[in-house]
């Protein structure tokens, strides 16, 4: 049976186990005079039976699927005649894929060595047997588990505690999966970065002022040997993010204050979702808005007052990015400002403070941790933003603090390094991982900073 069908069958069995467990606990309760004479509610008995049915079967299923293919391949390879046994890993891979192709029918058995055809045959047979065995074993284990769960139901059985502890383990496993994924990604980035740093020294990467990652592909090619100084990228990122925050923080904060403190409920109920729509606009749309509307406009204005503006400028990208992250600031700030207790405002108003004095001196400081959280979230978003910058700020890695020049950012360079055909072990591609690592560390630091600020204020004011 196919795994999908097997899973469906298992679900039916689990449902059945649940139902029967429920029925049995009710039946046991009846002569005792109601379910309050059971140790746990019928739900827990039913749940316990269902878990007994599902968990062992799923464990076996998972383990089987994880290992059976490796074992089968191993067996097939072992069965090959001495002469055909591959001597290197590469040859082994080739041979295996040949066998698999024959087995799946992509290659006709006549066109290959008869020994390989036989191996393919064996592969198919082993797979069928394995699938059948799996079906039988899983169903059997499910049935035995369900039966065990059903038989053990008794008024004194502490089903509630057992179910609770199993659920706790399941929740913990889910959390572990999330954490392990993060760790896994981090590790892979880290290892690739280490490979990069074997080719390019960390000092050059961290402090170099030149970024031109083109390396010669062939020895006879005319190309520079590549320069991997990341400073221009980080300066570009910093420049654009700063412009974006300069736009987003004041506007976002003021609109949050308006929404939370002054707006009548009707306006608020319309304006808040409208602002949040800004966050839902795809960044590509912002990107071409920036490239086609804002950048030429800035250029025009610049020219009219005699400034030399590049057609793609940090300013254009930063302004549009600022608009994009307004809702991150405003929405979160609005929430925390609204959450400041009314008694706090009353206290200030009762002392004769005006509304804006109250906001500035009481509400705002009280809401500051949350506001900082919103701003840092917006900053992370700005640092990680790619699309707008690709389209509006250009690809030129200029080391400049002039917002009217074209600059490029870390994320944009990662994109350009990895798009197109690439070798995966050249310094150029590996540089992407090193940049990714740096970016990750930057946002990590920002988050730690945010947590620190929030905690400091918490300790002080709660």
């Amino acid at each position, binding site marked *: 049976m196919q795994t999908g069908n097997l899973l469906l069958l298992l679900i039916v069995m689990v449902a059945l186990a649940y139902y029967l467990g429920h029925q049995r606990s009710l039946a046991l309760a009846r002569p005792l005079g109601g379910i309050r004479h059971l140790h746990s509610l019928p739900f827990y008995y039913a749940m316990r039976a269902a878990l007994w049915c599902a968990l062992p079967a799923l464990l076996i299923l998972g383990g089987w699927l994880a290992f059976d293919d490796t074992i089968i391949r191993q067996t097939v390879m072992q069965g090959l005649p001495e002469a055909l046994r591959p001597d290197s890993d590469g040859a082994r891979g080739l041979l295996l894929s040949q066998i698999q192709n024959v087995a799946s029918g992509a290659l006709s058995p006549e066109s290959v060595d008869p020994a390989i055809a036989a191996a393919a045959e064996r592969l198919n047979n082993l797979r069928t047997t394995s699938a059948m065995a799996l079906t039988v074993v899983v169903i059997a284990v499910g049935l035995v588990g369900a039966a065990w769960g059903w038989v053990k139901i008794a008024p004194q059985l502490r089903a509630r505690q057992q179910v609770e502890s199993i659920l706790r383990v399941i929740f913990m496993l889910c959390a572990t999966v999330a954490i392990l994924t993060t760790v896994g990604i981090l590790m892979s980035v880290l290892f690739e970065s280490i490979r990069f740093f074997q080719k390019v020294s960390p000092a050059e990467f961290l402090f170099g002022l030149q970024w031109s990652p083109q390396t010669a592909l062939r020895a006879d090619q005319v190309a520079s040997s590549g320069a991997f100084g990341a400073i221009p990228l980080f300066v570009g990122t910093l420049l654009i993010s700063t412009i974006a925050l300069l736009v987003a923080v004041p506007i976002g904060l003021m609109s949050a204050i308006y929404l939370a403190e002054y707006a*009548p409920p009707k306006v608020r109920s319309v304006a808040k979702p409208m602002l949040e729509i800004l966050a839902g606009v795809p960044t590509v749309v912002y990107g071409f808005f920036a490239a086609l509307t804002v950048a030429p406009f800035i250029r025009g204005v610049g020219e009219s007052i005699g400034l030399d503006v590049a057609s793609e400028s940090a300013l254009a990208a930063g302004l549009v990015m600022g608009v994009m992250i307004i809702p991150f600031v405003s929405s979160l700030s609005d929430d925390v400002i609204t959450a400041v*207790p009314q*008694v*706090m*405002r*009353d*206290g*200030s*108003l*009762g*002392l*004769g*403070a*005006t509304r804006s*004095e109250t906001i500035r*001196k*009481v509400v705002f*400081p*009280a809401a500051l941790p949350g506001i900082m959280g919103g701003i840092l979230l917006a900053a992370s978003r700005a640092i990680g933003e790619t699309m707008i910058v690709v389209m509006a700020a250009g690809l030129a890695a200029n080391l400049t603090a002039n917002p009217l020049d074209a600059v490029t950012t870390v994320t944009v360079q990662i994109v350009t390094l990895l798009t197109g055909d690439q070798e995966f072990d050249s310094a150029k591609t590996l540089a992407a991982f090193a940049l990714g690592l740096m970016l990750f560390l930057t946002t990590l630091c920002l988050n730690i900073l945010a947590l620190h600020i929030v905690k400091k*204020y918490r300790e*002080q*004011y*709660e």
Partner: protein
Amino acid sequence: MDTAEKLDKNASGRNHAEEPMIDLEEQPMQETRYPEHTVGTPFVDDPKMRLRDVDVFYGDNQAIHKVSLDIGKNEVVALIGPSGCGKSTFLRSLNRMNDTIDICRVTGELFLEDQDLYDPKMDVVELRARVGMVFQKPNPFPKSIYDNVAYGPRLHGLANKKYELDEIVETSLRKAGLWDEVKDRLHAPGTGLSGGQQQRLCIARTIAVSPEVVLMDEPCSALDPIATAKIEELIDELTESYTIAIVTHSMQQAARVSNRTAYFHLGRLIEVNDTETVFTKPEHELTEAYITGRFG
């Protein structure tokens, strides 16, 4: 339960079994009349605040009906009555704190000495500096103890020099009986104090702007008996320089701290008298019912 509902139930004889404390046959409550005018002595000579025919509405819902009352100079007036009868609403209209509630509307004559509180020309900021308020739940600002007390004086520009501000802070804290407990940690956050200390801090904060009237809305309801005793003592001392209106749910507290007591019922002011009179020989049957604990 709402009192009116309770009266209804008593009258129709429902719930007899569940309320054995109330002797229905002897208490023909449905005959309870709301007096046309407040019984007792609502008016005094030369009052600090003169309130006439005050109505307060929340939208279409009238919370206060034609309340007339004087608050005399340097006296403590206690406002008592069952929950929901409008004590807080009335108190908050005395320094226009109700302005912060959009649907709230106040009519009638409300005067602080000779100034009309609801005169359009009246400056709310100045009014609230003259009529301060202490709230039910201690609500210190998330600032240091010092900044909490200095908040009002700074707003109103009461001190020009640092030492003047220091002085105001110290005297206010002393008056609130908190100085000795906090003088070594003036710059620690005010929220780090105990509930009773926080409430005294709020009182210090209020008197730091030298108001003429202090309104207190159940200032002790979140405090333990010892902290409550301290605040009551404090109220006693404050009468020397301030006029106080205090809402309380504790009869003992009203009896201990106030000169006059006003009994509210369903948005009406039923009776005002000397505190002693109210608690020994109440004029109105509703007052009597309330203070003897028959409802409320």
